[in-house]
Structure formats: structure tokens, C-alpha cells
């Protein structure tokens, strides 16, 4: 009886093990899982169209390839590397940080910083000028008393005459 129980337990364990591995192998990756990787890739044939929404036959084949690779247990990075090896780095939505590609990452912040610097300098210049000109006009008005102003004197005289 004990022997029969042990045999049955062994068979059950063995069948559970095989069923588990069979399930793992049969698991077909969903469209969402495929597209999560596909949207990070661009097919060189259809420029500017991400792989997940590209309607061409070439892109459909690529998506199927991703599905196959996912079902084989390849990771996202391994799949992306496969595509780079086979079709070149230009298939990546985010170019690798090498060579001239660095310009893409460096230029925008450099341009923004340079623009901010120029703007800051210009503001300082403008505020400096307006302050200086207001000081200058104040000094001028202080330096020229109303009585000494020929024009004001003539105006006052004419007003007096009218009265």
C-alpha cells in the first residue's frame, strides 16, 4: 500500500513538472508584449514609422520575429541587440550614445543653456541702460533749473502778456 502511494505521488509530481514546462513553452506573447518592444524600433524601409504601428509586410514580419524571440525566452535587451546586429543601430528609436549620436544628447541642453545665458546678459544690459538713462534724466533736470530754461521763460512771459 505504501509502495503504491509512493509510486502515485511520484507520477503526480512528474506529470505536474512536465505540464508546467509545457505551459511555459506554449505561452504565446500577447500583442501588447510584442508592441512594448516594437515601439522602440523603426524599420529602415518605413522611415519615421515605429514598428508597432507600421502596416507594411516587412514590419509585420519583424513583429512576428519579436513574438518568436519572446516565446523563446529572450529578454528585451537581447531582442533589441539582435535587431541592431542584423539591421544596424538606426533601427533603434533611441540612438546609442556613441560617436556623432552624442550630438543628439548634448546639443539641446547646450543650446538651452546658451540661450538662457544670452537672455540673462541681455536683461542685465537692458535694466542697466534704463537705470542709467533715468539717473541721467534726473541729473539733467536737476542741473537745469526751470528759471534758466529759455523756453519756459518765454512761455511764462507770453502767459503773463495774455492776462
Amino acid at each position, binding site marked *: 500500500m505504501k509502495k503504491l502511494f509512493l509510486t502515485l505521488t511520484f507520477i503526480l509530481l512528474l506529470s505536474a513538472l512536465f505540464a508546467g514546462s509545457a505551459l511555459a513553452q506554449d505561452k504565446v506573447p500577447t500583442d501588447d508584449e510584442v508592441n512594448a518592444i516594437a515601439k522602440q524600433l523603426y*524599420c*529602415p*524601409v518605413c522611415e519615421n514609422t515605429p514598428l508597432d504601428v507600421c502596416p*507594411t*509586410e*516587412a514590419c509585420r*514580419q*519583424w513583429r*512576428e*520575429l519579436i513574438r518568436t524571440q519572446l516565446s523563446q525566452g529572450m529578454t528585451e535587451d537581447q531582442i533589441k541587440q539582435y535587431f*541592431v*546586429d*542584423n*539591421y*544596424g543601430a*538606426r533601427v533603434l528609436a533611441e540612438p546609442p550614445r556613441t560617436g*556623432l549620436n552624442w*550630438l543628439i544628447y548634448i*546639443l539641446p541642453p547646450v543650446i538651452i543653456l*546658451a540661450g538662457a*545665458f*544670452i537672455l540673462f*546678459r541681455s536683461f*542685465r*544690459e537692458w535694466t*542697466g*541702460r534704463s537705470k*542709467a*538713462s533715468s*539717473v*541721467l534724466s534726473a*541729473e*539733467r533736470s536737476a*542741473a*537745469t533749473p526751470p528759471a534758466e530754461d529759455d523756453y519756459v521763460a518765454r512761455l511764462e512771459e507770453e502767459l503773463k502778456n495774455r492776462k
Partner: protein
Amino acid sequence: MTETTIPKRGVPLWVQIIIWVFIVGLLALVGVILSKRQQGTVQPGDAIPDFRLPLFSGYEYEGRSEVKLSDFQGKVVVLNFWASWCKPCEQEAAELEAAWKFYEPHGEVVFLGADYVDTEPEARAYLKKYGITFFNGPDMGTKISQLFRIRGVPETYFIDQNGVLYFVKIGPFASVNEIKSIIAQKNP
């Protein structure tokens, strides 16, 4: 009367020079890239730099799984870019194979197929479907197609015995005779 001078402040000269050098450099770079893109394919008369083509298993050349253009010096090379997803490629598949069968016994002309942006299972199915037997392999990293600056598939490049391009065919061939007449220019 007191004279007050407004201090003149602006971007220092060295910063201006750096900015201008940077802008001119950037424009030059964009110009070079754009002019390269506008160049079109390589032109007849251009010497073709050596390149490597890995071959699909079953399509090896003398038992080798990779060939170089320089391996075929002294022979006319017919380099055909194709893909399994390319409908016009199907139109010329039979013609290319027939032409290859015509030249294969003489050994003076070599046909190479460069499979462009394709997946291997579909590529193999295509080769089997059209009974293609000449040397074929994937254009790994699209390096060869970039070297020839191809615009699409099918495109076929005829390279003479000295490694100089002498004819470019854009689109599918209409007949075997068309292929033969182009080869005959260098291999009468």
C-alpha cells in the same frame, strides 16, 4: 552739467566667436549629411570598396559561409538586393535564377543575393519558393546597402572584373535577355 556715460555691456567676444564657430560647424555637418542623402546610388565608373557578405547555410560559396567582393576579382559580379516582402522582387526571381544557371558552368560570372531588411525564415521560404540557387545571404547591419546607397529593392549592381561598377538596374528585370545583355558588356 554732469555727463554720465552708460556702460556698454554685451556678450563677450570670445563667447560670440565660440557660438559662431559652433553654428557654422553644425550647419556644415547638416550640409554634409544632406548632400550624402541626395547623392543617390553609387554611379557607374565608381570603384566598389571591398565588402563582406555572410551566406545562408545551403548557399555557401566553395564551402565558405562568408564571401568578400575581392574573392571575385577577374569575374563579373551581379549583386542583387532583394527581400521576401518585396513584390517586384518576385517578378525577377525566375529571370535571375535562369541567368545564373546560364553562366554558372563557365565560372566567369558570379551572382550574389543580398537579402535586405528581412527575417531569415521568410527569406529562406522565398529562396525555396523561387528555386534560387545562387549565393545568398543577409545584408547584416544593412552595411552593404548603405555602401551602395540603395533606395529600395530590387536593385542590381553589375561590377566588372576590376571591381568597378559599370551598370545599375533599379527595379525588376523584364527578361533573362536583359540580364544577359548587361553582362555581355563586360563578358562577351
